[in-house]
Structure formats: structure tokens, C-alpha cells
């Protein structure tokens, strides 16, 4: 059979940079996750907190017009539109995001190792770094959907339900904070889950390692600090380091409190470098079987 009869034809367009392939990896990765009902359950549960805040802001805006005292009473529920409130909201969302990432890590990265997806990807016209960046962007997109996007929606809602645009003009730091905290969460968590899933691709040990890293290291940090009161031990808790750095972005971190944002940034940067090294060592087109 002739090649043109089989539908094959030469490519006559201008080949684009392989970096565009990263976007295809993101698209395929997201569609892979979006078609699982488990993901939608997790998103639904993750958005319960968002819906609570969304409804509360509306309620507060409505009641403020009628009675200022009720609005002040509602401020006890921390839906105040300040940087602190958004930092608390994003911290709560990040906890749910950790669960989502356990699923995403297993589906996006772990399954590539278990079912040979890695060999398929790297046999295309892209290199190792395109694959890595594509997968990292996919995970970062998932983190953004659960943490940054809802916070941005709440920020817009809070501003638009007020009497003027003054809220937006008065609080540019809040917007920077949301984007900053979101970036910290997306970068650190995507690198970390990729590194863990690349070395522990099976779902059960992946979940155990991922959760253990966050929950137990915090416990260890608290126990070490309790020995002699040295607060630098708290740097061991990566989860809290991200939280401190996020609060610094909002301007709600006490600068005199140890550990400072600089130390947290240094620890998280080191963690990201180690994760990246682990990822690069593990992403190979062939598997050496000994």
C-alpha cells in the first residue's frame, strides 16, 4: 500500500521548539487526572472550606449594611479580608492539597514508571528536561487549582462586595501574598512529590512517604525544640516553613520571631535542589535491570 493512501504525509510546517511539548504534557496530565472521579471527590471536599468562606463573605457584606455590630461579630470567624485571613485559608487548603498530590503523584509520575509511560515520553521528540518541566507544571497546576485560585476568587469577591474599589487599592500586598504563597506551595510541593514518586512509584509507599515527611518531621521538630527551647529546630518541619514563607509574603509574619523567613527560604531552596537532583537521576529513557 502506498504511504499516502495510508494517511502518511510529510510535515511541511516549521518545527517548533520542543519546549512547546511541555504544554502538551500538561494538557495530557490534567486530562488524565480530570477524568478520575476520585479527583473530583477530592476537589469537592477541598472546596468545602472555600464555599464556607465564599458564603461567609457574602453574608458579612449583606449584614454589614444593616448592622455594623453583627459584621464585627462575624470577624471572629477570621473571614476579615486581611492577609492573615488569606494565609490561614491557604494553609488549610494546602492540607487538602497534600492529599490531592498523593493521588496526582501516583497517577502522573508513579504510573509512568510502573507502566512504561516514561519510555514512551522520552522516545518522542522531547528531552529529559522537557518531560520534567511538563510534569512539574502539571502538578503545579493542580496545586494552583486548589490553593491559589480559590484565594484569588475570595479576594475578588471581598473587594467587589464592598462599596468601592478602595479594598483593591488598599490591599495590593494581599494580592502579592496570594500569588507568593501560591508560588511557594506550587514549587516546593511539585518538586517534592515528583522526587518521591520517581523513587517510590507504587501508590501505598508513595502515600506513606509523602505524608510521613510532612506529619512526622513536624513532630520531630517540636520534640527537638522542647529539649532546650532552640527554635531553629522548627526548620525541620517543611510544612511550617512553607507556611512561614507564605505569611511573610502576606506581611503577617512577625520579623522578630525565629526562624525568620530567610532561614525558611534557605531550607526550602535546599530541599528543592535535592529534589531536583533526585528527579534528574531517576528520569531515564531506559531502565537498567540488574
Amino acid at each position, binding site marked *: 500500500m502506498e504511504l499516502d493512501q495510508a494517511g502518511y504525509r510529510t510535515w511541511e510546517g516549521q518545527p517548533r521548539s520542543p519546549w512547546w511539548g511541555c504544554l502538551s504534557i500538561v494538557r495530557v496530565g490534567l486530562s488524565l487526572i480530570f477524568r478520575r472521579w476520585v479527583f473530583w471527590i*477530592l476537589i469537592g471536599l477541598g472546596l468545602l472550606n472555600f464555599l464556607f468562606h465564599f458564603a461567609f463573605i457574602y453574608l458579612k457584606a449583606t449584614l454589614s449594611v444593616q448592622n455594623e455590630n453583627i459584621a464585627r461579630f462575624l470577624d471572629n470567624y477570621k473571614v476579615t479580608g486581611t492577609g492573615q485571613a488569606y494565609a490561614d485559608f491557604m494553609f488549610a487548603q494546602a492540607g487538602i492539597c497534600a492529599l490531592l498530590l498523593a*493521588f496526582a503523584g501516583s497517577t502522573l509520575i508513579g504510573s509512568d514508571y510502573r507502566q512504561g509511560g516514561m519510555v514512551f515520553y522520552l522516545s518522542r521528540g522531547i528531552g529529559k528536561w522537557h518531560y520534567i518541566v511538563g510534569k512539574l507544571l502539571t502538578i503545579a497546576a493542580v496545586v494552583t487549582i486548589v490553593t491559589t485560585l480559590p484565594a484569588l476568587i475570595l479576594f475578588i469577591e471581598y473587594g467587589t462586595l464592598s462599596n468601592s474599589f478602595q479594598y483593591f487599592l488598599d490591599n495590593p500586598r494581599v494580592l502579592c501574598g496570594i500569588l507568593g504563597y501560591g508560588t511557594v506551595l506550587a514549587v516546593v510541593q511539585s518538586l517534592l512529590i515528583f522526587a518521591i514518586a520517581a523513587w*517510590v512509584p*507504587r*501508590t*501505598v509507599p508513595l*502515600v506513606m512517604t509523602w505524608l*510521613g515527611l510532612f506529619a*512526622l518531621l513536624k513532630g520531630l521538630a517540636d*520534640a527537638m525544640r522542647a529539649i532546650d527551647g532552640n527554635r531553629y529546630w522548627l526548620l525541620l518541619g517543611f510544612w511550617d516553613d512553607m507556611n512561614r514563607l507564605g505569611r511573610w509574603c502576606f506581611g503577617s509574619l512577625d520579623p522578630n520571631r525565629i526562624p525568620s523567613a530567610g532561614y525558611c527560604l534557605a531550607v526550602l531552596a535546599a530541599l528543592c535542589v535535592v529534589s531536583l537532583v533526585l528527579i534528574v537521576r531517576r528520569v531515564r529513557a531506559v531502565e537498567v535491570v540488574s
Partner: protein
Amino acid sequence: MKTTLSACGHLFWLTIRRQLCSRQTLACVALTGLCALIVLAWSRQADPTAKKLAEQVLVPTFVAFLMPIFAICYGASGIGGEREDQTLIYLLIVPITRPLVYFTKALAGLALVAGWTGGSLFLLCRLAGVPGLKLFAMFLPAALLGGLAYASLFLLVGAVFRHGTIISLVYWFFLEVLFGNLPGIVKRVSVAFYVRCMIYDSGGDLQLGPLGRVAREMFLPVSGMAATATLSAAVVALLALGVLLFETREYRDAC
């Protein structure tokens, strides 16, 4: 009959061997090691007492985290692991009836969970010194029964759902952690509530209980005996339900 028993015995040991010689066992060792470090660090503080050890370390670290994680590790992966590895088809074509297959896998999983839970609790209590040894007998029945209840639940989830591990995780996070701290009787749907009731009941001399006045008033505990009976009944009921569902379910993703 003898052949069936022999086949079940073989399946039991095969399951134990496969589960033990796996990366999840390494993860269990690492997590237990981290908990041991926490206990060692805790024991170096100025005034270590049994009450503090229970409230600051064992309840939040072991009962709330390590015990359910062991159960997810060996429970959810019992049938779920076979589905993930696409070896369930081989399990289903062996000449053993489905209820016996499930029951044997459950026995192996429960034995592993009980072994890990008991062993790690002993290690942590031993490392904590005198306060730990005081607490070991107090925590052991609750930890074992809680671990078995979690394991039989997660085994069932792994047999019913394709992403059993993730669903177990969601259940643990939302129902156990979130509902477990809500006011009212809604928390009685969680395994952790009954485990804590057993611990607080047996630790009456140390005045163990939830931290803080509000938490204590909201806890609304049941007696230790009632908690033991509930957890035991839950283990049996979940195993029976698992056998029933595994027998009737058609696994389209088996191969």
C-alpha cells in the same frame, strides 16, 4: 478439604512474604524510625511523665498517624495491590473459593498490621523509658484493636474501589481527623474515637483525656467496654461484608 487448607496456607505465607519484602515495609521502617527519634527527643526534656508522653507523643503521633498508616499499608494493599499490579486475575483463577481467598488475604494483612502496631508501640514505649513502660499495657489493647479495625476497613475499600489506597486516605483524613474533632455524636462513626475511648478509660489513673477544656466537654466518651465491643463487632462485620462483596463483585480491571 486438606488440599484447600494447604492452598490457603500457601496463599497466606505468599501474601505475608510479598507484603513484607516490599518498599512499603521500608517506608514503615522509616516512619517508625522517625517516631522513635521523636520519642528519644521527647525523653530528653526536663520532666518526662507518663501523662505527658501519652498526650504529647503517643496519641498524636502513634494513635492518630502511625497506626492508620500501617493499616493503609497492609490493609488497602491486600486486594488493592493485586489490582494495581494486575495480578488479581491469577488470584481469582486459583482453585480456592473467593470467600476463602479474601479471608486468607485478610488474615495475612491483619497479622501484619497487628505485628507492626504491637512491635512499634513496644519500641516507642521502651525508648521512652519508665513512663513508656507504664503506658505500654494501657495502649496495647486499644492499638491492636484499632489497627485491626482500620485494616479490615481499608481491605474492604481496596477490594471495592480501584483507587482503594487514595479513598482510604480520604476516609482517614476527613472522617477520622475532621469528624473525630467535631462536637456531638457524629464522631462515633470514626474508629479513632473508640480507640481514644479505650485509652482514656484504661488511663483513668493518669487522668488521660483530650487536651483543653472545650475538647474534653465536646468529647462525650463511651465506656472502655462499649468501645471494645464496638471495635470487635466492626472488625467482624467489615470482614463479613468484604467476603460478601469480593464474592459477588465482577472485576473488569482484573487483567
